[in-house]
């Protein structure tokens, strides 16, 4: 009977210690951000949407080959030894933001921007052409580093 009361005492004391922990954190400042107004700045290596600097692209197709989910597709015109880019299809729906294309590109024409808010109302808008300059205006201004 005695140790039942003793256990009861230890139990009650452990409850009070638990309350003390929550009380301690009750008066500490909050760690959360108010999302739409305050946004977390993305780090320098952050892998968001794929961005392109068309002038640097040498059409070596390395990025198309390495992409695990096959979301890049390039067509180019070849006139007497001079290759010009025609279309650079990028399908955001399949992209898994792994960063392999940006790592394998020899001239770092293709890079990962820091846009992560990708929401569309119509699925077809997820497949975009990286060549036209207005591609990311819909989401906050494109910050191609």
């Amino acid at each position, binding site marked *: 009977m005695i140790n039942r009361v003793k256990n009861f005492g230890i139990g009650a004391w452990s409850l009070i210690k638990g309350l003390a922990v929550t009380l301690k954190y009750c008066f500490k400042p909050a760690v959360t951000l108010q999302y739409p107004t305050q946004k977390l700045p993305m780090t320098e290596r952050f892998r968001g949407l794929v961005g392109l600097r068309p002038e640097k692209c040498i059409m070596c197709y390395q990025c198309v080959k390495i992409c695990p989910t096959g979301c890049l597709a390039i067509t180019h015109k070849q006139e007497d030894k001079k290759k010009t880019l025609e279309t650079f299809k990028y399908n955001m729906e399949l992209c898994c933001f*792994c960063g*392999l294309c940006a790592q394998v590109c020899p001239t770092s024409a293709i890079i990962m921007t820091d846009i992560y808010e990708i929401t569309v109302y119509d699925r077809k808008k997820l497949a975009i052409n990286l060549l036209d300059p207005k591609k990311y205006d819909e989401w906050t201004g494109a910050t191609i580093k």
Partner: protein
Amino acid sequence: MDTQQTKDIYTEEFLMNMGPQHPSTHGVLSLELKLDGEFIRECTPHIGYLHRSMEKIAENRTYTQFIPFTDRLDYVASMNNNLAYVMAVEKLLNLELPERAKYIRIIVAELNRVASHLVAVGTFAQDLGAFATPLFYCFREREKIIDIFDQICGNRLTYNYIRIGGVQFDLPAGVDEKVKEFVKYMRPKVDDYDRLLTYNTIFLARSKDIGVLPREMAINYSVTGPSLRGSGVKWDLRKDEPYLAYDKFEFDVPVGENGDAWDRYKVRVEEMRQSLRIVEQAINTLPEGDPTVRVGRVIKPPPSEVYCRTENPRGELGFYVVSDGSVYPYRLKIRSPSFSNLAVVPELVKGLKVADIVCVLGSFDIVLGEIDR
């Protein structure tokens, strides 16, 4: 229960479906419970809702292309998945790694173990009814680790950081300060969890002697990781079959006594402390040099088979890779720890109450991405 008095009362067991969409099945797992009032007579799990047939995908991807897929296996500890897969391929190529690459991999894997255990501890407390408060504390600490990973490799959950032959980038400038500061910040927090949860009398009442897993049954079902150590089996790959540079650090392996839910939880809390010790020792003695070995862009391992396993936060994740000399692996088998850990749950749960199945399931800390592959 079947005295004369209850013989003539017609009672009937009813079938209750728990999942696949349920607050505490830790993913898309469906448990079919045959209930007699509150008591569970039988429990049959149905899995496969998240089956993406990773092994078939692996046969159509080159060795480097499959690394982002390993992130999606145990999505709570994706660094450790990368590590296991990449070590298997390096064993195929029998590649020798520079010291710095080993140390960086250990730091990153152990930090990810702390983050994964934080999720496990938070959701286990949530399952037992401590609504949201411990979970928020654990996620507040986990956020600090995610920031460090964000700085190192650029992503917050699916890191894709470890490459065949080393790591993708070297550690950025200020990271070792941040890691040391995190370790100092995290130690008192783990003591907080002890005060808030581990010795709380209601927490003890809910998880002591629930779902007791004896030693032999644990080994027989090949349960691995903290759930095995909770049953008193001192088996940790980092100590018994040291890979990378684990033999250079001293840490001890926490072991539970009678293998109930509380012991498994206690082992995880203890392991967080040990992982912090490893990270501290690794970051202090980080060697200089280039963390990657030059491996050609096209990786064609010689035709052979290899099995390599590492100590994941949930157990031993093994990769059996068969290569036939081409760029694609011929067969890639993923031995997932949660798959075998889940196989024990129906055995342990017979006769317990509905509230206990949630406790036992939470104490095994399963992740369905890894089970269904």
